[in-house]
């Protein structure tokens, strides 16, 4: 493979980047992902403007006001906003107590969406959602797949036949359609999405694990473990599982890429994360009607999805290439 040497570095970089963004989202995001500044709707990347944070009374939360001019008379700030309306705000009600403290210049490095929300902050928080859905869905698939695959492989006979026929049926059903069916039948939200993705994608893992068990079962060290009187569970756990860990990890990593894509697709169709959740797929869904006037609001989340999926795919592929150079680059 062409990218063999650089592949693992590139894949790891993408995955680590997404992971760091997701984990440290509250510290990295320049703004609250859901706070709207309606005066700054659909602003292009790099746009910056002045705002004042204030509240009408001490018990109310701070709101932002986009300002054009400001005058201070006695203890009151007279703020002219961009629509030339005048606001009279007492200085103690401005964040920090003085105008110098409350006035901020905000820059939207990736622009804003149709509600005046900062796209960069939403992308950063979106990493969190993609990662969480990707991991939890893959863990669901891992648990079911390893359990059923091992059960089929170690027992053989009728158990094997039933489980494998079942995986055939699951494979017979197109994945995205299956997911759409489940999320349409239930309430669309992220918990349904990760469970559905896990419940639909386990057969790949089950086939892999079964194959591993069947292959290892006949080897001498397993035979001798059996002769020593170890029971099936112990053989599975101590001998078969550690020896099949590598392909399981590869499948798991590729599964994360698939799950991230599935979540994005479902959210894009409106069957996943619901507004205002900053899921990348949902972001594209809600901003696609503004493609002509604000293309950046769909371009940024699309790039983010591509980078995340590419990262996990390349990582999985290159780990597999390293483990088994004989394997081709087929899917």
């Amino acid at each position, binding site marked *: 493979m062409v990218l063999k040497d650089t592949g693992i570095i590139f894949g790891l970089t993408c995955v680590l980047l997404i992971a760091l963004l997701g984990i440290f989202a509250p510290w990295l995001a320049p703004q609250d992902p859901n706070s709207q500044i309606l005066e700054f709707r659909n602003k292009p990347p790099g746009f910056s403007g002045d705002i004042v944070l204030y509240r009408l009374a001490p018990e109310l939360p701070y709101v932002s006001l986009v300002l054009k001019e400001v005058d201070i008379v006695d203890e009151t700030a007279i703020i002219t906003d961009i629509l030339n309306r005048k606001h009279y705000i007492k200085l103690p009600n401005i964040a920090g107590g003085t105008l110098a403290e409350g006035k901020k210049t905000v820059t939207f490095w990736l622009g804003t969406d149709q509600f005046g929300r900062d796209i960069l902050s939403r992308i950063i928080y979106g990493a969190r959602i993609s990662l969480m859905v990707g991991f939890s869905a893959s863990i669901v698939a891992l648990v079911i797949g390893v359990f059923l695959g091992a059960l089929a492989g170690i027992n053989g006979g009728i158990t094997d036949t039933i489980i494998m026929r079942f995986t055939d049926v699951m494979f017979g*059903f197109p994945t995205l359609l299956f997911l759409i069916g489940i999320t349409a039948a239930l309430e669309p939200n992220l918990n349904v999405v990760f469970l559905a993705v896990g419940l639909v994608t386990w057969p790949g893992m089950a086939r892999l694990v079964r194959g591993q068990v069947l292959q290892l079962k006949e080897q001498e060290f397993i035979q001798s473990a059996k002769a020593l009187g170890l029971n099936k569970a112990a053989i599975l756990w101590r001998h078969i599982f550690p020896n099949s860990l590598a392909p399981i990890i590869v499948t798991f990593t590729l599964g994360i890429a698939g799950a991230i*894509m599935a979540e994005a697709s479902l959210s894009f169709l409106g069957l996943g994360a619901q507004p205002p959740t900053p899921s990348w797929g949902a972001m594209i869904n809600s901003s696609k009607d503004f493609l002509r006037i604000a293309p950046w609001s769909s371009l940024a989340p699309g790039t983010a999805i591509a980078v995340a999926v590419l990262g996990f795919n390349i990582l999985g592929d290159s780990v597999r290439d390293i483990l088994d150079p004989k394997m*081709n680059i087929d899917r």
Partner: protein
Amino acid sequence: MIQYFLNRLVQTVPVILGVIIITFVLMYIVPGDPVVSMVGERYNEETVQRLRQEMHLDDPLSLQFLRYVGNVFQGNFGNSFITGEPVAKLVMDKFPNTMILAITAMFFAVLVGLTSGIISSIRPGSLLDRGIMVLTLAGISAPVFWVGLILVLVVGVILRWLPPTGFGGFEYLILPAVTLGLRSAAYLARLTRATMLDVLSQDYIRTARSKKLPEWKVVIKHAFPNTLIPVITIIGTDFGSYLSGAVLTESIFGWPGIGRLALEAILKRDFPVIQGTVLFMALMFVLMNVLVDMLYGFVDPRVRLERSRK
């Protein structure tokens, strides 16, 4: 040969049955009473009771399932909650559109995938090869709906070469077909490259070269026929899912196929249509897979022998 085909057909029976069970269960787990979602919030008890009886909703589950299977085999998928039209008719109205889109997309994928794969394999490691491989990786990882939106923006809105969305003549077909086929094209390019590299290092190619055949003849006449296998693989894995509803592509381009029919039914919570379209698409998917497997057996005798031995 016939033995292999028969075996393959028999194997699909449990799969088809499983697909029917899954669609039945999917609609059974829908929260809320289907009759209530049919008549709306303000209903009177009598109507609900009458409808429940008409729809046999009070029967035991097993009887309901048998009746469902019976209806499906008679081609009766129920009627839409909203328009009252038979679901089978709705599906059949939209299916040709999906078919056209799927065939065009596959044509594009095979054309582009094969060409770039072969170009890549002629000088492995060259700048061109690396470029193509990076592009294919991007093509595999970029979300379909996003690629579609970019095409709409660049080709449809900025350059105005093609109509961005809608349905009509051939010019409306190009963007959705490219969007739908791009992933397959990328996969096919990689598979073709791998196959070609494998083939080009074999003895009979060396023989061909050593008798001073021109290089293009070696590639086209001796190596190229081997790429038939990856082509069938791609058609096999992807064409079924195209037919089973290119839901994402159809929703971006407003293409009136069955994928969009299903999605609209979902938004309106029109359950018989959802159930019918999902079942139909899944059956198409199963059917396509069988056909392609048979094609494999037809093209490659090794497959036939190995599988009938099982």
